[in-house]
């Protein structure tokens, strides 16, 4: 199981859409993933260390070094397959690089 942490400013809309899209699409592609959606301000070092991949909307400074791979997922929010595809491809490459 690959654990992904999606995040946005309010934690009620954008990050939930990314969570739903990643879980649906990546499972269709044969990956076992679980994605949680949170507010950026609630993320701390201890929390993020429990995940394999960080999936913010755009490059986000958390105020500390992020030791896990980061995949910006903002284009998914457009709900246009051609825009989301590069994100899914990057996510697949990242999952493979985890060697889990």
């Amino acid at each position, binding site marked *: 199981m690959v654990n992904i942490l999606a995040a946005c*400013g*309010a934690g009620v809309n*954008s990050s939930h859409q990314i969570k739903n899209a990643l879980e649906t699409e990546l499972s269709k592609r044969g990956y076992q993933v679980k994605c949680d959606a949170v507010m950026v301000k609630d993320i701390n070092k201890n929390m993020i260390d429990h995940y394999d991949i960080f999936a913010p*909307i755009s*490059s986000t400074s958390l105020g500390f070094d992020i030791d896990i791979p980061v995949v910006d997922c903002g284009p998914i*929010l*457009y*709900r246009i397959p051609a825009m989301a595809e590069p994100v899914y491809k990057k996510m697949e490459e990242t999952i493979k690089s985890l060697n889990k």
Partner: protein
Amino acid sequence: MNSLQNALFEKETVFIEDGESKEEIFKSVAKQLLGKGLVTEDFLDNLLEREENYPTGIDLSVINPNLPSIAIPHTESGFVKTRRIIPIKLIKSVEFKNMIQPDQKVEASFLFMILNDSPNEQANMLADIMDFLNQTDLEELKSFFELNEEKEIYKFLATKF
């Protein structure tokens, strides 16, 4: 159109604003929403703070070059007392940072302000907005963005969203 989507808009909360900046527009709309009991006293401050740190401008030219940019301002459910989308037509477009590329800016001329007091709600209002923009006929959508009366904006959304 279904009952859930209809319930996302109300005639009394469609606005046409002529503010010069997003701060001015947020202040005007937040005051009216507070007066209707739809948001808390802290809503405006949190909306402004969130927009500064986590911008919501969306460049629609990637859908079609003829469409104007929009923004989907929203903040945490704790500052909101309802589940509704607030359409706001801007007389003058104003600058927002791009949601997915915050170092870039967009000139937004329409806002879909999201009020969501149910953080665990499965239905995703942002997804609904994007599907509306992607799936509505382009000519109709262009006409929609040119509407200048609250009742016409509400009528379009109530029938097409």
